[in-house]
């Protein structure tokens, strides 16, 4: 009997060992595959987001079409067109600054009025409030930084519904009181695009203000 048991042990042992090893390998394999897939998905998702931002940044063209001043008001007419005509909603945020370039000196600018003049019919635009933690602007190194690092909990953003028809061109009028620009030299309009619940800069301009 004892001899038989020894024989059984000898026969069963490799099978069990092999089974355990195979199971371990399968479990490790699946775990690794899940991890790799998850990592890959994460990377793909980030890459897709980067691509979409890059794509929109390349497509959106913002320019100053006209600037006129009166004693108290500066009227800035912003033209908006796209390299490839596509409908989209953008968000306009407005800052003022003394220094060109750095985002760390930007201060939110309160404006008298923002309106979409063309295409017809003209309409006033009321601002939405965006959370600063989910609103990203580009710093000088090219990286996106959330606006909350500038110390703002939220920021006013004016939604712009861009439609390529009838013309691939929009005109936005911004009215700014000169008194709101005290101590600043630049008006900085920034266009954002919305992905999920986050907002990313796709275009920026600087208007040099000479008091």
């Amino acid at each position, binding site marked *: 009997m004892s001899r038989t048991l020894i024989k059984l042990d000898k026969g069963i042992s490799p099978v069990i060992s092999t089974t355990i090893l195979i199971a371990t390998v399968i479990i490790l394999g699946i775990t690794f595959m899940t991890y790799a897939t998850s990592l*890959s998905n994460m990377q793909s998702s980030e*890459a897709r987001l980067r*691509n979409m931002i890059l794509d929109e940044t390349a*497509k959106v*063209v913002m320019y100053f079409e006209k600037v006129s001043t009166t004693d108290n008001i500066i009227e800035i007419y912003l033209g908006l067109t796209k390299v490839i005509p596509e409908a989209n909603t953008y968000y306009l945020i407005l800052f003022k600054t003394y220094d060109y370039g750095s985002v760390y000196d930007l201060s939110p600018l309160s404006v008298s009025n923002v309106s979409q003049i063309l295409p017809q019919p003209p309409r006033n635009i009321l601002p939405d409030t965006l959370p600063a933690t989910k609103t990203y602007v580009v710093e000088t190194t090219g990286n996106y930084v959330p606006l909350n690092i500038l110390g703002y909990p939220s920021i006013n953003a004016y939604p712009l519904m861009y439609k390529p028809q009838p013309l*691939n*061109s929009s005109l936005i009028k911004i009215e700014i009181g000169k008194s709101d620009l005290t101590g600043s030299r630049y008006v900085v309009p920034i266009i954002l695009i919305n992905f999920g619940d986050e907002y990313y800069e796709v275009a920026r301009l600087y208007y040099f203000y000479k008091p």
Partner: protein
Amino acid sequence: MSHTLRSGQAEVIGGLIVASVLLIVIVPLTLNIISSTTTIGTRSFVLRSQFEVERWSEKLTLSKDMTKLENSGPVKVTIVRIWRNVNGTSVPIDVQPIEIPSGEYIPITQLASTPKELEAIVTARGRVFKISELIPPTPPTGAPLGLSGNEISGGSTLFDLNISVMRCIINKSRESRVCNRPLPAIYYNNSWWAYVNGSWRPINVDSDKTYSDLDGNNASELVVIHLVGNDYRVLGGTNYQYAIRIGNYVNIASDVKLIAVYMKALFKSSKDVSVVVGINVSLAHSRNMSVMVSSYAVLSSAKITKGDINLMIYEGYVLFPVKQFNYFDTLLSNNPGLYDLIIEINVTVQEGAGDVYSSIEYIAVSTA
């Protein structure tokens, strides 16, 4: 010995299989991510670069007679919007897209009745062409004395000037007539010419040519005649004021620092009269009459005394030191574009009675 070798081989083979599987899974994933990022990024970059090249290749020019708008660039231009002056206010107006192929033109009437109504043209690629920048500069045809051609913008002999408006007020003329139809006139090519309804025409004037060359230097001068019925008469009143307005004469950029108006004005009076003459030089925006600056440096109280040498020549320049005066700087930098040059001449009789003749030999403007 052989059993140990086999075990080793199996481990190596197993290891190779595992490594291969890992590589087969990870490498394509990584390549896929890199590839998709690079492909889309490159495509966007190429599209935008191409767009910007085309955008900044757009070029529009206005013909010399300002009736045609030509696409003088290498790419097709599509006009989507114009800025038009409506009752003194600039208004953006969307237009049906107007395509101008390279090298072709459209009549300006397709956008507005005259170029003066237009302020800017906006293209589909987002270029803004200001009309004031499209107007071709007037090449100087003859430099005034003492100046070289490249120092002068818009400089010309008077005969070539586009004199758009003429004002004339005669307080008391010799014939007690009011100068109600003043004309700029010049003696040229052995006959008198007047600027009538936008062009120079020969006229019959019963006046000596010396009226147009008061200093006898053989350079014809601009004089003012007044027309009453068929009577062309060189002004010889005793107390008068007139202004010459030369339309679209000076192109002023927003960063202008100094404007200099060079001129030679002549006054001749009868020996039995004493007069005080004054010249005031102003610049007025061609499209907005309210934008106007007058030079602080004027010839304001030169006197020709009775019995004295009865010819006075003012030859020099009038300066607009833009940067030195906040008023000039603010007004001109906010309103760049074409300006009319206005030269106002006042002659006041102080003593006696007689004829007074005035004329202008040349005008030129340079900006810096």
